């Protein structure tokens, strides 16, 4: 047939090829006129359909079995368990006897009821009848009222438009009103009748209802739990139906929970997209108090009143989860969410349990549990510290002390003075030999040196290729030293005293307060804090091998005279004290260091360095030419200048000639969001995460060069600070926190500016080295016994009068408040602006007025006399003197502050709180509570007869006496209650 089909196009038809083989006929008798045997086809069709069906079912099942559903089912089981346990508890605490009694009573009333069956029926029928009648009457009334309203409107309109049919309408209105009232009367009467009937019915069935209600109340808890159990567990068939594929669109019990956080964005290329946190799909118990002992992922979040609760500062609905914890918000599986293990053990455990593996392309992996404070900074960046984030804050303190911001741009460290000493006067302080030894390895001189090491690191030690690093490093160091000396212009200082007593000096150094900022050698004292603040000032170990005694004398006598920009305040040392201190510090020597010889300068190495530096901006031939013409001194000066430029010494030090130079380090403003592909891991087998890289970098910055072939100018330049592991963790935590997630203003931390400025200022001045401020600080405390501790400045704003505080800060030496303290508050030479910053800070913290307050105390003679009486009875003077003289027999350690100063120093309201409960303001204070609370928490006075035992009145009386009689403070001008 095909050969007879007409051919379009008119081409000659090719001959029909005969197949070489005939197609075998498959059982032609069975297949009839079909090509294949139908049963045969049926068989294969059946098999393939079954297979297809099977695969489809398998595909749908695999698609539907998600990890999070498993967790949700587990949680439901947990809830059922707990509900059952609660039910058991409730049922065991049920008063069965009472319940049975009630049951019996119920039986009785039921029996009684049966007797009165007929009666009850009759009343019930009556009631039904009345109800029906009432319904009708009520309806009539309502309709009548509607008609009345419309008639009223018409009438009023007629009157208003002065129409002629107004009187007729008035008539009509009256009629309608009457009808309406009639109906109302009817329905009201019916209401009363119904009430009467109900009361009658109640006589018969009332008791039963009561008993039933009692029973229900008894079982209330149990019933509630039972209902809960039923909701949780409606049976296997119902549960599997409602969660089955396709049918789960109706009302599934397993569903994804998500929190859409609108104004905290995920930063993606070109766009900021809203966060959709699906963490609560698995973390089901996280915001409920009762799951603290449950296993993960159902465990309650720690500190619910600080996080997650709707009344907390971080409610879950506004903040979600990934804002703080990072990780992939929209994921719903353990791996995809980006959970990161906090230790090797946990990593191994997760690999086994969850098949966990590192995710190389996840840009925001979750913060580990011991790193969680890194998530705070992106909102809490107004002030330099985050409340209650001690690990994070210690990282920021370390950055401030070690001066990372000198080379790397970091947020929050603008306008801070560079951390290293001024090198423009270096020749007046040090010797060239000392500097050369120092630059080689600062920690050889003193183990706590802050200066990092630039030479003999992982990439410039030994010899590599053609370079002998020993010789080269020595040449570089010498060149730098020569350069510095050539530019140094030392100040002319008066000669210092060198005849002090070292033993007396030691005593002074250990007591007068040096240890608030300084330490001598490694810090030994057992610390409750990290003792970071004692690194604020340079470590004083081995000073005798560094500077001359007369230099030390001039320095401790008046630091600003030697270096105007110094942070060190004056301790108001007398000449004698200063000389003693100088003698003591000079006696601290490092003899091994002093005997160490200086390395020889290899001229060839110097030539190499100079040549290489010359080649950076001239051709090789020109460089050689220039080199030939240079003397050794010229080479040193040239190389020194260029090397300082390369290594960036001006990042920490004032170097003459480099006042305007730009810092050489990478900007770290968004270090927490840096793409991992942009970090050079070198050949190190460390984990590919930001944190791991930062930690490695801080431990040994140049280790990434190991195994690489680099020319000297390509080598990594960051020096090695030899941080301890703990410090490395803290600083890298800060780096990880510097993310570039956009946070709108309304979501940021709302610290008042005064508080933020104050915190910044006290960090720069290291007030916390001696004082406890906002509960943190007091690093000097482990070096002293408790009686000698500098005061805790909690509530300082509420406590002190601004005027007094100002005069104190400007001249602390003039106030003899705590004569027993051997430590001195130094004179910082604050400007007015600076002192005001501190005062404003304290006042803003306590939310009290500043700077204008009233110190008037309103009182009357009677109260004053009561106050005086109490003052005597409470024997305040056994610890508090009321004059500048020390009472006989008492040593200064036994004393408390002089009360004569109270009226001009303390705020009147603060004294009331203080006397009421001193331990609340300064926990551990030696001032006792004279009004301890009784069992109910109400303060009780030891003198119940005075002023009727009213604690508030008694305390007020004491305060009044203190301010007016003891101190001589002014009485209020308008005291209408002054009685004679």
């Amino acid at each position, binding site marked *: 047939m095909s050969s007879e089909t007409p051919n379009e196009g008119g081409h000659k038809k090719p001959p029909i090829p005969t197949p070489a083989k005939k197609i075998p006929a498959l059982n032609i008798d069975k297949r009839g006129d079909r090509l294949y045997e139908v049963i045969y086809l049926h068989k294969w069709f059946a098999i393939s359909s079954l297979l297809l069906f099977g695969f489809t079912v398998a595909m749908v099942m695999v698609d539907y079995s998600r990890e999070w559903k498993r967790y949700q089912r587990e949680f439901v089981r947990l809830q059922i368990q707990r509900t059952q346990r609660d039910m058991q508890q*409730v049922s065991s605490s049920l008063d069965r006897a009472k319940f049975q009694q009630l049951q019996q009573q119920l039986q009785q009333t039921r029996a009684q009821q049966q007797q009165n069956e007929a009666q009850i029926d009759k009343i019930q029928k009556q009631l039904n009848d009345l109800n029906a009648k009432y319904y009708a009457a009520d309806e009539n009334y309502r309709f009548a009222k509607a008609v009345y309203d419309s008639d009223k409107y018409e009438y009023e309109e007629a009157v208003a438009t002065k129409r002629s049919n107004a009187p007729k309408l008035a008539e009509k209105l009256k009629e309608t009103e009457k009808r309406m009232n009639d109906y109302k009367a009817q329905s009201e009467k019916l209401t009363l009748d119904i009430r009467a009937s109900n009361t009658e019915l109640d006589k018969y069935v009332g008791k039963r209802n009561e008993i039933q209600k009692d029973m229900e109340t008894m079982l209330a808890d149990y019933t509630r739990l039972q209902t809960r159990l039923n909701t949780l567990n409606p049976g296997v068939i119902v549960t599997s139906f409602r969660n089955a594929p396709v049918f789960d669109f109706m009302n599934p019990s397993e569903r994804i929970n998500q929190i859409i956080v609108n104004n905290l964005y995920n930063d993606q290329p070109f766009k900021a997209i809203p966060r959709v946190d699906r963490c609560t799909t698995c973390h089901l118990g996280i915001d409920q108090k009762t799951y603290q002992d449950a296993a993960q992922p159902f465990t309650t979040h720690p500190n619910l009143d600080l996080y997650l609760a709707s009344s907390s500062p971080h409610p879950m609905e506004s903040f979600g989860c990934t804002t703080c914890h990072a990780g992939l918000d929209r994921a719903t599986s353990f791996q995809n969410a980006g959970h990161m293990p906090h230790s090797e053990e946990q990593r191994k455990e997760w690999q086994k349990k969850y098949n966990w593996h590192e995710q190389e392309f996840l840009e925001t992996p979750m913060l580990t549990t011991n790193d969680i404070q890194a998530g705070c900074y992106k909102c809490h960046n107004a002030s330099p510290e985050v409340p209650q984030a001690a690990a994070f804050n210690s990282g920021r303190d370390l950055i401030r002390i070690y001066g990372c911001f000198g080379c790397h741009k970091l947020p929050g460290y603008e306008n801070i003075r560079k951390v290293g000493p001024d090198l423009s006067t270096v020749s007046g302080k040090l010797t060239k030999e000392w500097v050369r030894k120092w630059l080689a390895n600062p920690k050889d001189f003193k183990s706590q040196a802050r200066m990092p090491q630039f030479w003999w690191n992982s990439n410039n030690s030994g010899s590599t290729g053609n370079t002998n690093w020993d010789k080269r490093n020595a040449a570089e160091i010498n060149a730098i030293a020569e350069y510095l000396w050539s530019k140094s212009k030392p100040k002319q200082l008066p000669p210092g005293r060198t005849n002090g007593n070292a033993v007396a000096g030691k005593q002074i150094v250990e007591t007068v307060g040096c240890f608030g900022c300084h330490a001598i050698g490694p810090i030994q004292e057992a610390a409750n804090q990290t003792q970071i603040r004692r690194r604020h000032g340079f470590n004083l170990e081995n000073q005798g091998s560094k500077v001359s005694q007369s230099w030390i004398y001039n320095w401790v006598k008046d630091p600003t005279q030697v270096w105007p920009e110094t942070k060190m305040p004056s301790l108001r040392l007398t000449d004698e004290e200063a000389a003693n201190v100088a003698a003591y510090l000079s006696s601290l020597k490092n003899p091994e260091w002093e005997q160490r010889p200086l390395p020889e300068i290899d001229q060839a190495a110097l030539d190499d360095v100079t040549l290489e530096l010359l080649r950076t901006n001239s051709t090789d031939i020109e460089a050689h030419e220039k080199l030939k013409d240079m003397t050794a001194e010229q080479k040193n000066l040239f190389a020194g200048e260029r090397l300082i430029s390369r290594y960036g010494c001006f990042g920490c030090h004032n170097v003459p000639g480099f006042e305007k130079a730009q810092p050489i380090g990478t900007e770290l403003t968004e270090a927490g969001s840096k793409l991992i592909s942009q970090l050079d891991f070198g050949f190190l087998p460390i984990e590919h995460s930001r944190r791991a890289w930062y930690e490695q970098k801080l431990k040994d910055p140049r280790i990434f060069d190991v195994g690489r072939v680099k020319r000297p100018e390509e080598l990594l330049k960051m020096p090695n600070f030899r941080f301890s592991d703990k410090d490395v963790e803290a600083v890298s935590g800060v780096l990880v926190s510097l993310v570039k997630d956009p946070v709108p203003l309304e979501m940021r931390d709302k610290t008042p500016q005064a508080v933020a400025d104050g915190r910044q200022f006290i960090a720069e001045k290291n007030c916390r080295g001696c004082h406890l401020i906002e509960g943190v600080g007091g690093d000097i405390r482990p070096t002293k016994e408790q009686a000698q501790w500098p005061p805790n400045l909690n509530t300082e704003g509420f406590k002190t009068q601004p005027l007094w505080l100002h005069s104190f800060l400007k001249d602390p030496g003039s106030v003899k408040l705590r004569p027993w303290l051997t430590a001195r508050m130094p004179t910082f030479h604050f400007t007015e602006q600076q002192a005001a910053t501190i005062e404003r800070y304290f006042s803003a913290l306590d939310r009290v007025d500043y700077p204008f307050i009233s110190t008037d105390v309103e009182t009357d003679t009677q109260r004053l006399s009561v106050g005086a009486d109490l003052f005597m009875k409470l024997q305040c003077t056994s610890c508090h003197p009321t004059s500048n003289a020390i*009472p006989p027999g008492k040593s200064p350690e036994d004393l408390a502050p002089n009360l004569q100063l109270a009226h001009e120093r303390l705020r009147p309201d603060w004294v009331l709180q203080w006397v009421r409960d001193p331990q609340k303001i300064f926990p551990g204070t030696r001032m006792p509570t004279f009004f301890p609370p009784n069992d109910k928490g109400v303060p009780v006075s030891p003198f119940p007869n005075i002023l009727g035992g009213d604690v508030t009145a008694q305390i007020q009386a004491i305060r009044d006496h203190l301010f007016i009689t003891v101190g001589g403070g002014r009485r209020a001008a308008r005291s209408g209650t002054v009685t004679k």
Partner: protein
Amino acid sequence: MHKRSLPLCASLLMVALVAGCGGGSNETNVPPPGGPGAPGGTTFDMSKANATITGKISFEGTPPPNDKIQMSADPYCAQHAAQNPTTETVKVSDGGLENVIVFVSSGLSAGATYATPTTPVEINQENCHYTPHVFTMMTNQPLKVKNSDMTLHNIHAWAEKNPQFNVGQPVKDMVSETKFKNPEVPLPVRCDVHKWMGAFIGVFDHPFHTVSKSGGSFELKVPPGNYEVTAWHEKFGKKTMMVQVGDNDKKELNFSFNTNDKGTAD
């Protein structure tokens, strides 16, 4: 459609529907008899503590003298404490060291609870000294602090595991009451007005503790078991020994201190 399959399908469907209509009953019956009452174990029966550990805390060598107190600041104390002008740090009688807290530090069955005694322990401030100087008590047992002197004393507990408190007692014979929730030994107590006054309390959550008396002797009644017993002195630190007692057993345990023993940082 095959004739056989229709009834079969229908019956299967009916069965499925009926089975699915299961669910909870809705009778308000009495709940089933509940499970055990209070969780955990019962209070320990003190009659089971029938084994006795006795002993003596001996002191070798000459005891170091106690510091003399400077009392001139408070005339009341200077007058009334004239008989007892030193601190009471080291008290040795008959070669035995007194005021040593002896207690069971480990070996008690975990989870056992002990009844809290309701009789209060008393500490008295008289003649500008604390009496007793060292004593022991149980957690949540009431402590009564009395001031028998006519001068201001305050009782300041330098506790670390319990909340600190500092209560002033300006009136003679006034009594303040308090209690400690957590076990802590030692718990120093000081007066801030009179710096030499000090006492030490041992707070335990079990009743197996005592203080050595004259001659350095002590006696502990414990249930049978294997225990670690610790002796603690405010100046000479602590020493531990192991002892095993059976039912109604009597064992002797002797500790020995000398001048070279030093207390560790408490």
